[in-house]
């Protein structure tokens, strides 16, 4: 049945295509069923990285042409560069605009930072806009 290399490569491509496409289905189910925005983000980023990787590798096995491999790598690397940026900003905006269920969080390391700063990003002690914020001489910004 599967004897020559093109048939084996097509079989590998078939398996990888189904795996990559099923990740998109999983993301869709997660978008429908998960209760809040942060967990929907968790589901929605599955096909962006792993799903696209599987589909592009399947494409490389289906084409069996080395000249197109750099293009496939370029597509995946660009997706890897841009997906974290958008996910970070969407998650940041979602946290700031209270689109999350607090009772679902086990720990919230961002709460102290957000509570200690005003909307302009300054520490809350200098939040009064009538006064010029003075640098705190005891604050070494994390450096000793």
């Amino acid at each position, binding site marked *: 049945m599967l004897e020559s290399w093109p048939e084996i490569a*097509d*079989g590998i*491509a*078939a*398996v990888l*295509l*189904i795996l*990559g*496409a*099923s990740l*998109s*289905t*999983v*993301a*869709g*189910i997660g*978008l*429908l069923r998960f209760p809040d*925005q942060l967990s*929907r*983000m968790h589901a*929605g980023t599955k*096909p*962006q990285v792993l*799903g*696209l990787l599987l*589909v*592009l590798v*399947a*494409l490389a096995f*289906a*084409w069996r042409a080395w000249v*197109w491999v750099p*293009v*496939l790598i*370029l*597509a*995946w690397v*660009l*997706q890897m560069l*841009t*997906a974290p*940026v*958008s996910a970070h*900003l*969407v998650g*940041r*905006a*979602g946290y*700031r*605009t209270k*689109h999350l269920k607090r009772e679902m969080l086990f720990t919230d390391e961002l709460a102290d930072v957000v509570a200690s700063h005003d*909307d302009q990003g300054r520490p809350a002690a200098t939040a009064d806009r009538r006064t010029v914020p003075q640098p705190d001489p005891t604050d070494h910004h994390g450096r000793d």
Partner: protein
Amino acid sequence: MSLLDIAGYLSLALLAGGGIAAIYRIVAGPSILDRAIATDVLLIVISSALCVEMALNHHTDNIVFVVVASVIGFVGSVTLSRFVAERKKEPVEHA
């Protein structure tokens, strides 16, 4: 009908399921950030469908669109989240 053809059509059905779920989430909301996430998922479903179609028909015509979609796909959600975060800070004047 070869093994790759069967897998390709099955993959397209799976991708259609994910795309329909993403479109439902875009319609239902409830917040604009949920719609941004679902739009990202819909874009990646379309990119994957183009890849599957290329594997099915053995051509390389759509790979440019896949690369471009992975470059500019994040612009929409970044702009949207900046807009949401900025609008939250503005004092309500005309309410």
